[in-house]
């Protein structure tokens, strides 16, 4: 049944592309609303008949995964939620995968954020991933939610020398002095690894400039696709590896699934997005090709008229 649906929608999509090609070869312009509808249809049909692919991690993602694997147990890992719902589909799966990986390895988690919206998404991670999947994790002993602070780079410039100066309490108003996780933590330099997850400003770049480099703390950024290429120059010395966009998240998810039996049945939103993603890439590339065919034909015609 599903197979028939897949074939019909594929047929419709490629038929539609062909129609648009013929239409534009005739020198006419397709209304942009038709294009919009077409994109909507192809992505939606790919979501409905969901096709899941196998993913294998590229070296740059594997570096991050293996770094976490090789940390001694009870290492301190900080995850910073520097994103808002507009980036959520790409980077929230990364944050969740990091949380899973850190806790299954028995590391200690510190959650904070430089974006106000990050704090609400932190709550979502704790409620929907951390608590149900790790019922034995104790607040204050295995993880702590520091929450959001205003001030962008200013926040980082303070926590690099003193956490307590910036966060006198956690997000629930408990003094850091009464939280066991902070017994041996003075500043961000005491972290064994930092995952800044985001893609805007402030974000992973600020973490490298204000904490990673001056504090010599390993940074593994989880990035929205838009900024991922910009962070490559920091790899491998200033960032130990990086996850770029939904593909990076999917690779990390599949690596987790491959290595840990307990994650076989957890939600993997990024992996599920790869099917629709592929379909949309094909459509976009087809549009560029079709548009350019029209462009070159028009230019040649002009040229011939000119001669």
């Amino acid at each position: 049944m599903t197979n028939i649906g897949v074939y019909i929608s594929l047929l419709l999509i490629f038929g539609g592309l062909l129609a648009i090609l013929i239409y534009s070869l005739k020198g006419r312009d397709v209304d942009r609303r038709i294009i919009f509808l077409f994109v909507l249809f192809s992505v939606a049909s790919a979501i409905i008949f969901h096709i899941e692919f196998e993913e294998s991690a590229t070296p740059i993602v594997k570096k991050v995964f293996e770094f976490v694997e090789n940390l001694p147990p009870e290492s301190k890992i900080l995850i910073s939620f520097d994103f808002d719902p507009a980036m959520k589909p790409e980077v929230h799966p990364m944050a969740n995968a990091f949380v899973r990986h850190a806790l299954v390895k028995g590391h200690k988690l510190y959650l904070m954020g430089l974006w106000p919206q990050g704090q609400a998404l932190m709550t979502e991670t704790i409620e929907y991933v951390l608590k149900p999947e790790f019922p034995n994790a104790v607040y204050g002993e295995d993880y702590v939610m520091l929450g959001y602070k205003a001030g962008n780079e200013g926040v980082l410039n303070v926590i690099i020398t003193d956490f307590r100066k910036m966060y006198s309490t956690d997000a629930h108003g408990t003094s850091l002095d009464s939280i066991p996780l902070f017994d041996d933590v003075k500043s961000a330099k005491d972290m064994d690894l930092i995952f800044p997850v985001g893609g805007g400003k402030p974000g992973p770049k600020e973490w490298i400039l204000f904490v990673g480099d001056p504090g010599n703390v390993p940074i593994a950024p989880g990035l929205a696709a838009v900024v991922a290429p910009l962070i490559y120059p920091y790899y491998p010395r200033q960032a130990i590896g990086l996850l770029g966009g939904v593909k990076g998240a999917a690779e990390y998810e599949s690596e987790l699934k491959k290595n840990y039996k307990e994650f076989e049945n957890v939600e993997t939103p990024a992996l599920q997005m790869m099917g629709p993603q592929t379909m949309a890439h094909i459509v976009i590339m087809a549009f560029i090709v079709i548009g350019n065919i029209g462009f070159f034909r028009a230019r040649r015609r002009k040229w011939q008229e000119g001669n």
Partner: protein
Amino acid sequence: MRRITLIVTAVVVVLFIISWIIKTNTVPEDGTFRPFIQGFLVTFAAFLTLAIMSFLYRDNPFYKFAEHLYVGVSAAYAMSLGFWTTLVGNLFPRISQNLSDWFGVPFLHYEWHFVIPPILGIILLMRLSPKGGWISRWALAFIVGTTAGLNLPRFLRSDFIEQISSTFLPLLVQWQGVGPFFSNFSLAASGQFIAILTNITIFLGVLCGLIYFFFSKEHKGVFGTASRFGIWVLMVTFGASFGYTVMGRISLLVGRLTFLLKDWLGIIS
């Protein structure tokens, strides 16, 4: 025109109510709200999603409603978060025992100089009054000065010095002489030749890219060749950026459509 708007609004209202009823009977229990309210919330979220999407057809009252709601709600959200996390969390425990007790945060100890930021903050708010605009520049100056002072040494370190030393690559990776190089020669992605090619590309790419952005000398001769190679490397860079940006934008659409198809319509599980 007026009648069409009315008809469309009526249809939307009817669909909204139908969805509300259906969702009320199907939403899973989550403990915070009763199903009746949950059904409304899911329906409302879906309505807002579709209202924004309707902008693709053209600007319309539904889009305007959604956009105006967004502006108001998100401004107040940021204010609430900033108030609780930073004013209550960082300012009050340093300037007032009473305020700290009132808001239930542990008092640290008095630091008299922390009266400066709220004063500057209030000065910043003077921008709201038509006559006090000029004094708000003092607070603006503090913001500009902090950003400049924070950025200067750190950009110089991370984006300049560290980048230079990161480019110090041994060009001949795993070099064991000319003989082994040719006998093991291959275009395998993990092979020695590709590793060497990668390092050479990085070295020449950075060099020629910088030459392209060098404005004190005309691009002629060797300099011209280098800058032409530089622009090609830059164009490949932009191509990569283009690909990633397109990928990112699509992910957002997939995320939203998944919400509509899964959480609202329940077509997929």
